[in-house]
């Protein structure tokens, strides 16, 4: 632990923010443990797979009750029962599924649900209002690189608007030859592209600057998610409207209650920006901006304006609230960085990670995610000895630009306490730094506060002699 960092203090608002997140995570962990508690001891040991691979008690009780009353076939399409996790239906469990017919084909209304035995869920930071709040993706239970649409992290500033797609229009105006408006039908007629990209909130890890604070990787890193996005290249629309000489910025505006706005450099718009209407093969979720979202690959999440209704091309940035009073990085000395758009290279081990418990010495496949806003991940290294030595991890191919990259590393744990870490390098050569490196150049938000944005430092997990995994700082 670096004493300089510990001597610095968070301000009252940040302290209360962090305390709130600690309490929210504690609540989520308690629920998860209750859901995951097996009826009998199993070899997997409580906590190793904290999301539970054994039937929740409630569901078994539910089945017994259903069977006793003869109500074997449940009402289909009804709202999810409180007895089963969100997104699932409480179906009866057969004692021997090889001896009775299963449930009816397509009798779920035609839109599937997940197994009632899977419990992973987002949890919400307890802000003063539920309208302006955020939720975290359960990275600890994730596989591969794609985030299920229902588990994509959220950040809302004015609730989630419910927009009829037939009534939604995008207006493009300002320094253009001809201002135009587009319905969703119009936009879907343009040639489209599909790309896998992560979106990360620049506040991801905000609790972790000064000392290890949250317990799980969902809490420390859950504000990043990867999706296959489909839509129209913004460059196509710019060509359609004709951008005038001297234009340099675009204002993007959402049609939520915050009427969220950010200014975006025009070069980004020409380069790889997209107007997306689909997420993982279906319409984007309301929480992600239905029916239309601006996607700015590699830029901080707040700039990916949801419920997009307006683009105004201009010569200057608009200096909106979000790009002046928020999402700016106050440094030692009192100056603040502005327009710090890029999400820099970052990685984290998701298995094993905080609050898990390894059953004993032996083989484990360490696994995690790496990503960078500047292109492809070039390599990921893993240390299983607290940073004394590093070895290359295997990258799951294809390694896509500006996208979560899954890495894996075979590890035989000798049963002794240690610290495991990952660090990545992107194709620009940039190497993921330590927290100490970052604080060394930035200070902590004016000197004594905890800066909350753009933490991309190496994450350390301590493995205790009893197999317990916990969040630690190790430089």
């Amino acid at each position, binding site marked *: 632990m670096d004493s300089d960092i510990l001597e610095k203090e968070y*301000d009252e608002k940040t302290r209360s923010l962090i305390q709130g997140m600690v309490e929210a995570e504690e609540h989520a962990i308690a629920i998860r443990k209750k859901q995951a508690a097996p009826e009998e001891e199993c070899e997997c040991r409580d906590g190793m797979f904290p999301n539970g691979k054994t039937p929740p008690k409630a569901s078994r009780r539910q089945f017994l009750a259903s069977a006793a009353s003869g109500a074997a076939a449940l009402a289909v399409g009804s709202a999810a029962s409180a007895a089963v996790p969100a997104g699932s239906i409480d179906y009866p469990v057969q004692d021997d599924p090889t001896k009775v017919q299963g449930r009816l084909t397509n009798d779920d209304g035609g839109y599937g649900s997940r197994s009632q035995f899977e419990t992973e869920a987002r949890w919400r930071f307890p802000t003063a*209002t539920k309208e*302006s709040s955020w939720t975290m993706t359960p990275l600890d239970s994730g596989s591969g690189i794609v985030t299920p649409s229902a588990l994509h992290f959220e950040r809302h500033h*004015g609730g989630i608007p419910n927009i009829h797609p037939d009534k939604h229009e995008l*207006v493009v*105006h300002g320094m253009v030859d001809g*201002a*135009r*408006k*587009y*319905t969703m039908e*119009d*936009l879907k*007629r*343009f*040639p489209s592209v599909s790309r896998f990209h992560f979106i990360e909130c620049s506040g991801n890890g905000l609790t972790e600057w000064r000392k290890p604070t949250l317990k799980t990787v969902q809490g420390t890193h859950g504000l990043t998610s990867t999706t296959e996005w489909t839509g129209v290249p913004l*460059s196509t629309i710019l*060509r*359609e409207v004709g*951008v005038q000489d*001297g234009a*340099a*910025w675009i204002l993007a505006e959402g049609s939520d*209650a*915050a*009427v969220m*706005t950010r200014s975006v*450099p025009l*070069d980004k718009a020409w*380069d790889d920006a997209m107007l997306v209407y689909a997420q993982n093969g279906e319409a984007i979720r309301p929480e992600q901006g239905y029916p239309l979202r601006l996607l700015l690959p590699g830029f901080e999440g707040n700039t990916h304006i949801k419920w997009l209704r*307006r683009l*105004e091309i201009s*010569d*200057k*940035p608009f*200096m*909106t*609230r979000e790009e*002046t*009073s928020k999402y700016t990085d*106050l440094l030692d000395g*009192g*100056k*603040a*960085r*502005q*327009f*710090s758009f*890029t999400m*820099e290279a970052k990685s984290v081990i998701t298995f094993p990670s905080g609050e898990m418990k390894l059953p004993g010495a032996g083989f484990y496949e360490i696994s995690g995610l790496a990503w960078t806003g500047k292109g492809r991940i070039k390599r990921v290294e893993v240390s299983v000895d607290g940073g004394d030595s590093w070895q290359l991890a295997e990258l799951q191919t294809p390694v896509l630009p500006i996208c979560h990259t899954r890495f894996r590393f075979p590890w035989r744990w000798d049963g002794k306490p240690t610290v495991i870490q990952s660090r990545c*390098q992107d194709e620009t050569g940039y190497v993921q*730094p330590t927290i100490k*490196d*970052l604080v*060394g*150049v930035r200070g902590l938000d*004016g*000197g*004594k*506060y905890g800066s909350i944005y753009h933490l991309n430092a190496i994450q350390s997990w301590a493995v205790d002699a009893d197999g317990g995994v916990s969040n630690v700082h190790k430089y």
Partner: protein
Amino acid sequence: MFTNIKTANYVSTITLSLILGAVPLKSSAATGYGGPYNFGNPASAAEIASIDIDVMPDGRGLPPGSGDYKTGKKVYAANCMACHGADLGGVAGTGAAALIGGRDSLASGKPKKTVESYWPYASTVFDFVKRAMPFWAPGSLSDDEVYAVVAYVLGEANILDKGTTLNATSLPKIDMPNKDGFISDPRPDVFLYE
């Protein structure tokens, strides 16, 4: 091109090269643009005006109308005080921020970020209040009311003389205390390159 984009704190060689590099693409098939497609329809001036609510630091976008401190005090009491407090310090539990105070605190080691201490432009206050405040009735204030409440907040912050009437001419002339407080993003700022 150079002078036009040298407008803010965001000026980097990447920006310049990409903007310059993007110009030829407008007329080439480098990215496969096969248009014009001419989908969609022209947006009329009236249609644009109905949603074009943004206000820029130089005053572009400010609507007609005016307001002053005295009127603003009433507007504030009726619409803002419940969350932001009689002292403009923010009421605990509402999520509302402190609006004033903290001047010269940014380099002190105990920074307090408020409209008074941190926000670089008065236009941002007008823009944000008009689009998103009050939280429970966003967009409900008239332009006159927005001018007035901005005059009240900036008056309480000792940034604006309490006798000043704010309008599209006077508002852009306000010098905010932290107008020079922002710098461009220099990252990468940690160099561990091989």
